[in-house]
């Protein structure tokens, strides 16, 4: 740290470093393990290393990444792959919208807003909702950029590691790596769910998907997410209105 840097209030770069440090926690470890799995899946399908790394950085959404590589390898049409990827990523819209008010982007450059939005994925959403309220309003954007940079760097490194480990990882551990994302997502949802509507939404989304899958039109994520979430909100609202005097 240079002597010219003011000690108070915290500079924007100090908030960025604080965000980077916050990235070194359990979510980064789980994220890295998940991307080791994704990297080895990419190698298994014969994709080039540069492709796997670019996909991690540019898509920045595990399920979409897996659907894309699996879809391309299966020879499915690009349109079909694109629609499935799009459906799996619709969740990013409500996730970004619900994080925005915490970021206080009003006086920021639009490019900064686009970068912040790109960083949003499950791990940073969970960590953002948990940590951002504790950060001073003017430091939230650099903090968030630091957190995102840290998580993205560890995931990209992990993709490369997984790529080289492909074929060496025993199947029992590949199964475990593929199960990491679901169990970690689910437990993370329980830790972030504060309102009754959020807790109901976990159950409706989970069991809603199993029910909607029997329809078989490929839109089950939409039915379970939009339908289940709205139902959860409606029921919680009803209960609130009844309890109000």
């Amino acid at each position: 740290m240079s002597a010219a840097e003011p000690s108070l209030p915290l500079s924007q770069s100090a908030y960025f470093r604080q965000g980077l440090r916050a990235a070194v926690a359990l979510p980064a470890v789980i994220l890295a393990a998940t991307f080791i799995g994704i990297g080895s899946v990419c190698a298994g399908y014969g994709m080039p290393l540069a492709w796997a790394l670019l996909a991690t950085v540019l898509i920045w959404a595990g399920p979409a990444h897996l659907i894309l590589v699996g879809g391309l390898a299966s020879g499915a049409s690009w349109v079909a792959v694109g629609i499935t990827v799009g459906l799996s990523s619709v969740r990013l819209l409500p996730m970004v919208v619900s994080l925005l008010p915490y970021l206080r982007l009003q006086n920021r450059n639009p490019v900064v807003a686009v970068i912040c939005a790109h960083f949003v994925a499950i791990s940073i959403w969970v960590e953002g909702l948990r940590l951002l309220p504790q950060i001073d309003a003017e430091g939230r954007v650099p903090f968030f950029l630091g957190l995102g940079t840290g998580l993205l760097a560890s995931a990209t490194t992990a993709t490369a590691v997984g790529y080289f480990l492909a074929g060496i990882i025993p199947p029992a551990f590949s199964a475990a790596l593929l199960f990491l994302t679901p169990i970690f997502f689910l437990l993370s949802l329980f830790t972030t769910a504060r309102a009754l509507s959020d807790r109901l939404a976990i159950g409706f989304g989970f069991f809603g998907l199993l029910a909607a899958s029997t329809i078989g039109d490929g839109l089950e994520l939409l039915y379970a997410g939009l339908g289940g979430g709205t139902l959860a909100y409606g029921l919680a609202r009803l209960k609130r209105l009844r309890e109000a005097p």
Partner: protein
Amino acid sequence: MTLFGSDPTPYIALLLVGVLPSEIWRWMALVVGRGLDETSEILVWVRAVATATLAAVVAKLAFFPGGALADLPTGWRVAAFVIGLTAYAAGRKSVLLGVLSAEAVIVGASLWLGIR
């Protein structure tokens, strides 16, 4: 393994049917979400939809999986969820404990069934 490959097709596919259909929702969120405040009623609904969709993705990844996880019978995956959630609750909401317990079931069952 290949470093870059000589065929540009996978890269074009990555941008068109991988990056674009994901990123578009983030851009739309910036337009839709402008000016919402933390306590607004719409945001409560939006968060419920985000939560339900993530829970749906969890169920999809666990019960309609690819790769080595597909070889493990569904009952074991259900057991992993139940044990993981129980450990999480018993361990005073420890995500680490929950994840490790669930993974122990997956690894144990895969080894026991001799999946390869």
